């Protein structure tokens, strides 16, 4: 797929020449901003996250859909001018469906997800620590299963690194604009018909 590799790396950003410390400093700066925004957005709160899964509180959907529309507009514009690389995780339908469902079940049990559990800890919701311990343990469990899953689940419906418009044989820009319009419509409907 040319999708992933057709942008040249931005000047000075090739992995071989990047100094580790500035890169880590950038990670810290971006992480601080992400954590700050998520806490202000209320998505470190147990009741906001579980409220979304109960379809009572739509804060999570509003945050995510807005982030997707804004992020998509900028990232595809930058990619079009060769300023950024895309970073696509492989589409593997079996692993995506089974992993997504397992993840969702765990998300409902804990009430936080891997990013928002860090937000919860930062805002003094100490029960986040139980979830973080579980996340570390579960990562080990997966690592134990990883040889098996590579030979089985991860081969079911493996499409590799691909873009949805390319898979559907639609022009990328038109697809992105159409999707953005659809997502904005959903955001407007959410704003009109939900209490929060």
């Amino acid at each position, binding site marked *: 797929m040319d999708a992933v590799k057709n942008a040249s790396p931005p000047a000075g950003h090739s992995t071989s020449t990047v100094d580790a410390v500035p890169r880590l400093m950038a990670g810290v700066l971006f992480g601080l901003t992400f954590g700050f925004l998520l806490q202000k957005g209320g998505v470190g709160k*147990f009741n906001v996250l579980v409220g979304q899964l109960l*379809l009572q509180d739509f804060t999570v959907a509003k945050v995510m859909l807005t982030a997707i529309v804004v992020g998509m507009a900028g990232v595809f514009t930058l990619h079009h001018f060769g300023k950024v690389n895309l970073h696509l995780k492989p589409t593997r339908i079996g692993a995506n469906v089974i992993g997504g*469902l397992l993840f969702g079940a*765990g998300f409902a049990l804990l009430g936080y997800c*891997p990013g928002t559990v860090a937000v919860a800890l930062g805002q003094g919701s100490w029960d986040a620590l*139980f979830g973080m311990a579980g996340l570390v343990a579960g990562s080990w469990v997966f690592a134990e299963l990883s040889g098996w899953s590579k030979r089985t689940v991860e081969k079911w419906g493996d499409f590799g690194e691909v873009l949805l418009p390319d898979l*559907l044989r639609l022009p990328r820009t038109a697809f992105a604009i159409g999707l953005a319009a659809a997502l904005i419509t959903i955001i407007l409907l959410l704003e009109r018909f939900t209490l929060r």
Partner: protein
Amino acid sequence: MRKPATCLGLLSGLALFPMSVAVAAESGVNALHYPGPAWSPYGVGAGIGVLSWLTFYFSDKPIGASSFYAQVAGFLGTLIAPRRTKSLAYFRDKPPRVSWGFVFVLAIVVGSALAALTGGEFANEWLPPMWEARFGGRIALRATIGFGGGLLMAVGARLAGGCTSGHGISGTLQLNPGSWITAICLFLGGIAVAVLLFTL
């Protein structure tokens, strides 16, 4: 380039399911009785969107969180059982290291603390009030369910290749079909279990 219809059909079929459980969620604990966000979700969402431009441009990285926990697991494994750790396929492919993504998640904790302290929202509590209203004040129960939830979530995230951030925001905004499938499935699984836990 195989079976594009499979992908599209799966996406549209799965999207209809939440509506059928909307009715079931009307009874039980009400999440709206508890505090909501300090800032507009649209403002925060737009901020995260812009942040993702910056991480792509300056760090050549999408926003993501779940691999942090795998790296911690890898570090602990290297300390406790180094040979076993090196033998596992996942850690052979992705040996643990203090990477951009690792410090990113550590910094989330600090950024959130700054936001909570400046906004008068520092919780300092072991049990979320909504959990307590439903399941009572035993911390051991919360610890057990929370640990189990975290464990399941990590297995799911590693299998799917990402979480609510890596697939749900960064992958979907790149129009990655696998990310859309994962994001929809994680909400479906989450809705099903949350409705069972909190409304029945």
